[in-house]
């Protein structure tokens, strides 16, 4: 690996990973989730070289528990998750604040303002206030690199987990990083657990005392950490001030430069929004008369500052969400306008874009779609055709979190709900007990291991009528094809015990069908049987197993195996069945043409279109090489 002094163009997430390595982290765990995934993924790539333990845990709660355990046994640890992952891990988060750490523990929470790839826009800085744990918020990837290392120091100083809050923009922006240190020669990966029931056994008698001790630490942090690099004050002493938390500082910095107003404001850069350090804020209130707080999403800093204003009886005008939007991520453009509005000026920006394109037809939206060859397309087609054949008319599909969520779109429309990880089965169970429709829970393989087991057990235990469909594409596809317990591989590529989804379901009492949706006709037949059995009153599940097409394409390239290609012949009548039933991006209808065409470079060779063509007009144009079929399984 690169040594001290090297420069690398790192994503914010990679910068955090490199800093963790330099800090001597010996244990890292996570469940993948955008935008957090690359933190632990980059650690997994070098884990063997460094001797670090790195794992994809089955969910965020489990990953937190594992990393926490390492830290109390004296091994520096890291756990990373997307913002909603911390909801899953919130139970142990709250407890860990009471029991505290021994070696440093960093909890990376990657929030997703603008909801680029999430079901909500929660601001996880609140978790700091809820758990009484410090939250560190970097303002650029370079700063994330520095603050990660500093966070380990404060974690050990106060014996508390530290929450490092990033956002999608920071996690997914690259910046040149100059490495300040080498990879340590030896990393501490073994420790020892010193028993202390009064500390680690949270019965009320113990936890009441621990709560008091936690609040003492909390006050110490508020008092002590109002210093660089957590707080930095530029141009102190001015009447007008801007307080900017996290990445908002980068926007404020550039906006003020563009306005030529750098010296007209005191600028307070906040890298510890929770708890907001008191001393520098008191100092600010001694001279500033008008303050704008710029922060993304909720008024976390603003509310804490307003409390200090009251305590100090300061005569100051304090603004925040009055001018800075509370929805969506901030940007230079938005912050520029917010500052203009704060100054009482027209909130306009100095840039003027050309008119958007106005054409007929319009520029069509391009949401993410199921890839060419995606196994979910096959499964959705099979499930729908089978429902028809089995005479199942009124169907509710409860959905879950993964690529297959895209199944809510036409032409499939096989996700009527999608709320949170594992929600498909729990919601299906409840619905099945109160509605007449047939309810089918559609859940991915990784999501099933994450949060699908308890609600599946519940279906059987409490007499639910939900049919469970597990889409097993043999990886955690949406976040970048990480392995899971059904793959027989660990995060670092070691062999692991392979656990089959059908074995779990069978042991719970589900009659479980395993289908290979590449064999379309056969799978439809099996699925029809499954529906009939379900209608007869049995607990039924279907596991549909076919590998993610992106993994297949990668393996085919690596092993030099050609996949088959399909083409449309003159027998095509232009009925558009393939286009309208499948929505495959590799099938296009060109301008002026009444017949579809298959883009050869995009076709993955799954053959589903050939199956659905009523005129047998879609044929293999290039045979697959020896062993191509095995790549899909």
């Amino acid at each position: 690996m690169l040594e001290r002094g090297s420069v690398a163009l790192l994503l914010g997430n990679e910068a955090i990973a490199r800093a963790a390595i330099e800090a001597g982290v010996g244990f890292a765990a996570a469940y993948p989730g955008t935008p957090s995934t690359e933190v632990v993924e980059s650690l997994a790539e070098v884990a063997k070289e460094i001797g670090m333990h790195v794992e994809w845990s089955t969910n965020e709660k489990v990953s937190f528990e594992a990393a926490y355990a390492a830290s109390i046994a004296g091994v520096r640890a890291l756990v990373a998750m997307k913002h909603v992952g911390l909801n899953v891990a919130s139970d142990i988060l709250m407890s860990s604040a009471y029991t505290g750490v021994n070696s440093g523990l960093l909890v990376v929470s990657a929030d997703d303002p603008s909801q680029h790839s999430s079901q909500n826009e929660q601001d996880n800085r609140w978790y700091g206030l809820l758990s009484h744990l410090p939250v560190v918020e970097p303002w650029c990837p370079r700063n994330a690199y520095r603050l990660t290392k500093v966070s380990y120091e404060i974690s050990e100083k106060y014996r508390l987990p530290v929450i490092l809050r990033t956002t999608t923009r920071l996690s997914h922006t690259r910046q040149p990083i100059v490495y300040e240190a080498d990879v340590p020669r030896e990393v501490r990966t073994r420790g020892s657990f010193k028993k202390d029931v009064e500390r680690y056994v949270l019965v009320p008698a113990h936890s009441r005392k621990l709560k008091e001790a936690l609040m003492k630490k909390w006050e110490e942090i508020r008092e002590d950490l109002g210093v660089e690099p957590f707080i930095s004050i530029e141009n102190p002493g001015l009447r007008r001030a801007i307080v900017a938390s996290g990445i908002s500082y980068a926007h404020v910095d550039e906006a003020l430069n563009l306005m030529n107003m750098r010296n007209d404001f005191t600028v307070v850069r906040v890298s510890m929004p929770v708890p907001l350090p008191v001393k520098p804020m008191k100092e600010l209130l001694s001279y500033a008369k008008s303050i704008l707080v710029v922060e993304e999403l909720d008024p976390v800093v603003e509310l804490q500052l307003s409390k200090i204003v009251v305590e100090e009886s300061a005569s100051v005008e304090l603004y925040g969400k009055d001018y800075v939007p509370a929805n969506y991520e901030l940007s230079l453009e938005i912050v520029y306008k917010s500052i203009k509005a704060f100054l009482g000026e027209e909130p306009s920006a100095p840039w003027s874009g050309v008119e958007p394109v106005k054409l007929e037809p319009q520029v069509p939206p391009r949401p993410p779609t199921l890839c060419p060859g995606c196994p979910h397309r096959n499964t959705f087609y099979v499930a729908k055709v089978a429902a028809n054949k089995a005479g199942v008319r009124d169907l509710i599909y409860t959905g879950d979190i993964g690529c297959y969520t895209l199944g809510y779109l036409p032409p499939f429309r096989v996700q009527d709900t999608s709320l949170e990880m594992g929600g498909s089965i729990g919601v299906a169970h409840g619905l099945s007990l109160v509605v007449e429709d047939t309810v089918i829970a559609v859940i991915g393989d990784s999501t099933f291991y994450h949060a699908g087991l308890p609600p599946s057990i519940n279906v059987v235990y409490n007499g639910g009528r939900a049919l469970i469909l597990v889409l097993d594409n043999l990886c955690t596809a949406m976040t970048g094809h990480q392995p899971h317990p059904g793959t027989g591989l660990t995060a670092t590529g070691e062999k692991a015990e392979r656990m089959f989804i059908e074995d779990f379901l069978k042991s719970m009492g589900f009659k479980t069908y395993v289908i290979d949706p590449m064999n379309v006709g056969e799978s439809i037949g099996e699925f029809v049987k499954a529906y009939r059995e379900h209608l007869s009153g049995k607990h039924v599940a279907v596991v549909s197993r076919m590998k993610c097409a992106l993994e297949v394409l990668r393996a085919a390239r690596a092993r030099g195996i050609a996949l088959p290609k399909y083409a449309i012949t003159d027998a095509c009548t232009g009925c558009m069945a393939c286009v309208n039933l499948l929505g495959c991006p590799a099938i296009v209808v060109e301008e002026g043409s009444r017949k579809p065409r298959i883009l050869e470079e995009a076709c993955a060779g799954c053959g589903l279109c050939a199956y659905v063509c009523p005129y047998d007009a879609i044929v293999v144009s290039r045979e697959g090489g020896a062993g191509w079929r095995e790549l899909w399984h």
Partner: protein
Amino acid sequence: MALKRFNILIAGVGGQGLLTLGELIGNAAIESGVDVTVAEVHGLSQRGGSVVVHVRLGPGSSPVIPKGAADLIIGLEAIETARYIDYASRESLVVMDSFIWPPPLSKHPSLKQIVGELSGRVKLFVIDASRIAREELKAAVAANVVLLGYSLALSKEFRNYVDLEAAVKAVRRVFRGKAVEVNEKALIRGYSEGGSLGVK
């Protein structure tokens, strides 16, 4: 001390090599001793969706280009270039592949319509980068690097931050094995195509 940042918006479809192009320009900046941010903006982290990469050369850390502030737009696909055209101002240079890849089940404007509409708004240059990559270089995925070479040749301002030599070094940093040679060729091919237009 308002220092100008040079803003490049890269637009296209997931899987076309946009992120790699962003990484290339970012590494070329490192080779040139220029600070840079490269922001990857994509939805559900999967293929097939609309993707944009914001590259900002010069000092500063705010990653996203304001609408109207792109100095250069590199469009890997026509519909996506049209979608993000409001990031350009009248002075912006827009370099676009003639490749059009409509989303499934969509009604969409034609390439000709898009070119007509854009050329009235910005300084538009269209190049058959995908065809060149596929037919001449036998590597369809190298269209992105052809476009980079072409853009460098067409924009003196871009070259003030990153020159061809730095771009070649970046290719060697980012790619491995056979891909180095193919992409070097793609870069030079695009650069000479742009140079032949005689634009200063």
